[in-house]
């Protein structure tokens, strides 16, 4: 197990995704919305990498770029050593099987006209063609794994609760035995008591199959619980990466500090973190500030922050931060 952990499965290098926007009189002007603007990170096999940030920071775009749901503007995505960022759809197909996704809204991501059997057998049919009998066997196994029963097999999505639907989504993702699953806010739409069920299940599946997760969420306490490493995103950039415990006990970037201090702590015994209330709101990604993008809300902004874009500095082994406060 330890050996597997150290192998890199995914390496993202200077990933950029710009969306062209028409602006101005009669849409003649053209601007770029920089959803993801140079993101670097690696995920090791069997690990869970958490990506956190506020809405609009580009975390979902990163996830979707990695599984190539859309084309990227520039940059590399090395999946098991191969750069899949520029692969053509035909060459991509074998990687499609190895990368699966679970999305936030289980109401929207399951086709309402297909029953559970059809939903889960679809990826099986696309990636190899087992007989109906084999399919049924595989699917029953999967249902068992995600805590659903055999009599759920021919039911339709509307007959399930949110938590059960998310289980179906997870079973569908697992059906083709992927190496990597993108979990894009998989528990945000669920109730607290059901969230824990799904999180435990994801952990069990990982322990059993050694699958790697990219876990995107805005619920910071759940992310800490499930992730090995965490990246914090702000306006299209990763501003800090560290192991999950390190990030929560020793946050360095002013944005990470503010983000963590804003979590309402349910434990009334615990000492309150000093609340850092950020002023203002996230600037528009169409018109992002020069230099460090966080400087307009940063309590420690200096003159250099407006001029120079801070680069990622490794402060300690495995703890990287992009902030001028840590320049030497």
């Amino acid at each position, binding site marked *: 197990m330890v050996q597997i952990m150290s192998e890199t499965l995914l390496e993202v290098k200077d990933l950029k995704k710009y969306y062209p926007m028409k602006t101005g009189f009669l849409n003649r002007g053209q601007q770029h919305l920089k959803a993801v603007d140079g993101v670097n990170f690696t995920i090791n096999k069997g690990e869970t990498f958490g990506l956190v940030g*506020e*809405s609009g920071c580009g975390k979902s775009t990163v996830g979707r770029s990695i599984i190539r749901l859309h084309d990227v503007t520039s940059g590399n995505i090395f999946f098991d050593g191969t750069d899949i960022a520029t692969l053509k759809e035909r060459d991509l197909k074998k990687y499609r099987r190895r990368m699966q996704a679970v999305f936030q809204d289980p109401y929207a991501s399951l086709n309402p006209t297909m029953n559970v059997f059809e939903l889960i057998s679809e990826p099986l049919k696309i990636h190899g063609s087992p007989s109906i009998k084999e399919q049924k066997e595989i699917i029953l196994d999967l249902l068992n794994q995600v805590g659903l029963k055999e009599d759920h097999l021919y039911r339709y999505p509307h007959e399930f*609760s949110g*938590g*059960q639907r998310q289980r179906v989504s997870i079973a569908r993702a697992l059906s083709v035995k992927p190496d990597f699953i993108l979990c894009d806010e998989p528990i945000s739409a669920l*109730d*607290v*008591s*059901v*969230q*824990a*069920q799904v*999180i*435990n299940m994801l*952990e069990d599946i990982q322990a059993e199959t050694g699958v790697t997760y990219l876990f995107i969420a*805005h619920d*910071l*306490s*759940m992310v*800490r*619980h499930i992730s090995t490493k965490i990246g914090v995103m702000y306006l299209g950039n990763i501003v800090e990466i560290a192991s999950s*415990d390190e990030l*929560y*006990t020793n946050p360095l970037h002013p944005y990470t500090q*503010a*983000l963590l*201090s*804003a*979590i*309402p*702590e*349910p*434990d*009334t*015994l*615990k000492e*309150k973190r000093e*609340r850092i*209330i*950020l002023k203002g*709101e*996230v600037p528009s990604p169409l018109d992002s500030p020069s230099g460090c993008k966080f400087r307009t809300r940063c309590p420690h902004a200096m003159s250099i922050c407006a001029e120079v874009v801070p680069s990622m500095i490794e402060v300690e082994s495995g703890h990287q931060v992009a902030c001028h406060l840590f320049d030497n």
Partner: protein
Amino acid sequence: MTKLLEIENLKTSFFTEAGEVQAVRGVGFHLNKGEVCGIVGESGSGKSVMAKSIMSLIHSPGKIKEGRILLHGENLIGKSDKELRSIRGNEIALISQDPMSALNPVVRIGKQLTEVIIRHRKVKKKEADKIAVDLLRQVGISSPEERLRQYPHELSGGMKQRIMIAMAISCSPELLIADEPTTALDVTIQAQILDLMNELKEKTDMALLLITHDLGVVAQNCERVMVMYGGMIMEEGPVKDLFQNPKHPYTEGLLGSLPKQSEGVKERLIPIQGSPPDLLNPPKGCPFAGRCPYTMSICEKQMPPYFEVGIGRRTMCWLQDESKKDGANHE
């Protein structure tokens, strides 16, 4: 302390084609002047329907079947629309979860805000404009004169929620019901909004009923909390006391399913198995019996009464009754 709001045995149902959905099944509590009280519960626990019942905003096919809602000792149920209009806004105000759908998208912010002020404060338009600018400043909106001329779509979610708060406090209500006021917002904006509400509360001494599913929000902002499940209040008590020492298995389960923020150790989460009860055919006994790890034979047969378990604390659970314990599944 004087009681501002008293609710007795409130039952609200929706009469749908499939049958009667009993969203609120007998809720009773009181709220003192200037108090901040939290209501937590999962989706479908009846917390929003209860809030709407208090505001008399239940429309067909919904109906308040039973109970009394007393504001200053006066029953709101059965009042005419005209009478209610003078109470809503003036005495009770509601902020809802989704500021995007609470504002009219084709009317300028200024008009929506002054409409309320003109109606309830009986002032001229010019003065209302002045009050509106003042209010926006109070809720921390920069360049308020400009904002008044904008349409809702030009503002961000946090900004819209500030407008909603400004609207709610425009007639200085004695009670503000905030139904998931920060659920649609990011954490840093959530912190701003909660801070603002606390600040306003300090200034005006209004009572706040904060409805949320986030135990953290309750822990940080409320004095007293009620835990709702299946249309009923399962447990009630002072926040600190209740969170540290829950007396109902449901509260215990909710707290157990949250990740513990301790260093180094990764404890496994303890989820509550199963899913919430079907309110179309609610169980005869305790609504939580089907998911409770301590279920006893009586739990499924008979609805438990409230047991006093300390100062200001009550819980609806048979475990508190020594004589009813049969020890069947109970460890």
